[in-house]
């Protein structure tokens, strides 16, 4: 498993556009939002989170779109299939590396921008953890979407799984409200961590069945 993760890390690190692009888009969105409204009239720290949540959704969507395309086109997946090796490890490793290389910086950027927009510094760790588990959930769901329509342009599959991401967004919204108002955060966090771990364990299995179906 470690060797699969190391190879996935190496591959993603080499594809600078795949991991740096989404992060730059996120920074751009977060900078553009306060510039596009009259900040003298609005209390930014009250609703700045919503733009973080939406950008998290869109960037996760964009980042995972090409997750399996290269491996499909260069025959890596076919080789794994012919060798009768399991796709589970590959899917798990891919999602974890994406979370590590894109999800963690995204969460960090989101937390820092919320601080820059008036959120109390003591709330930053809570916001960071919330965003990390949201990216874990979203990356898993969109990775499934990317696997679903791998040879048809992954956007279709990602769009088909978009409705599944909306409950995550609702949960994320509640977690952030709980941080803002200071009650019920740990209950929602427990739910989020539970869902995150369950999804992280099960979705790679679904992805591996999906990839196998494409190659049969």
């Amino acid at each position, binding site marked *: 498993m470690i060797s699969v993760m190391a190879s996935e890390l190496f591959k993603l690190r080499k594809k600078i556009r795949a991991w740096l692009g989404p992060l730059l888009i996120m920074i751009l969105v977060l900078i553009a939002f306060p510039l596009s409204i009259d900040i003298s009239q609005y209390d930014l720290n009250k609703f700045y989170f919503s733009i973080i949540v939406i950008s998290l959704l869109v960037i996760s969507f964009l980042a995972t779109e090409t997750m399996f395309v290269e491996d499909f086109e260069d025959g890596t997946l076919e080789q794994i299939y012919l060798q009768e090796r399991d796709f589970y490890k590959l899917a798990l490793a891919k999602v974890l590396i994406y979370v590590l290389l894109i999800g963690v910086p995204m969460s960090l950027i989101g937390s820092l921008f919320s601080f820059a927009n008036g959120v109390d510094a003591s709330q930053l760790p809570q916001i960071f953890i919330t965003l990390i588990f949201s990216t874990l959930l979203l990356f898993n769901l969109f990775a*499934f979407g990317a696997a*679903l*329509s791998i040879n*048809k342009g992954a956007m*279709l*599959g990602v*769009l*088909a*799984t*978009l*409705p*599944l991401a*909306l*409950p995550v967004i*609702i949960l994320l919204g509640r977690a952030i409200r709980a941080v803002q108002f200071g009650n019920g955060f740990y209950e929602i966090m427990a739910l989020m961590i539970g869902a995150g771990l369950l999804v992280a364990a099960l979705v790679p299995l*679904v992805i591996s*069945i*999906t990839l196998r*179906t*494409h190659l*049969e």
Partner: protein
Amino acid sequence: MLTSFIHKFSAPKSYVEMTAKLLPYIASCGLLLLLTGWVWGLAFAPEDAVQGNSYRIIFLHVPASIFAQAIYLFMSICAVMSVVWRVKLAAYLIKSAASVGALITFIALFSGSIWGIPTWGTWWQWDARITSTLILFIMYLGVITLHGSFSNLEKADRLMSILVIVGLVNIPIIKKSVDWWSTLHQPASITVSGAPTIDPSMLYPLFVSILGMGLVLISLGILSSRLHILGREKNKKWVQSYE
């Protein structure tokens, strides 16, 4: 005996032949019950003390909402059969049920919006139940689009089945959304475990409408699946000789 019945019925040929005989009865019973339920509910059921006559849309909205979820549940059962046992008919049924599901979910959302104007003062609210039903509608469209995008139909069947199974996670969220989140939408008046909180004079026509709509939707599903099966199996001998 049950296993042999399932094996026999799950062959597309047997399904088409059997449903040809059943369809006229199911469709006419469904239409009759639905019309009875609507006439009873719209003309003879008493006026609601709080909502006046506007509540009468429940005779369309409630059955539509119930079947919006029930059809997805049916599709999930078929998806498991298609993925695990590779039952060809199950995949055909998912594809046909998805169109009927999308239609009835749209009706549920539309009728809910109409009901929202006199009761909530707005036709749309980003409320838990409405939003999750909208998600369900998009799921149906996603299933239809995904299937339509593959030229290899066997592969499309299998991928569509996987998506349907994963999407099942939305059904309990929709069902419990009114209990889990603070919402404008009222909690369910009819539950499996408790006594209904609706007066019998309104409840009976509602039950008749639900039953009627169920049968009408089954008829639509059968009709759509028969067309789909005949299209998919058009090169088979039994279709070419089928009248």
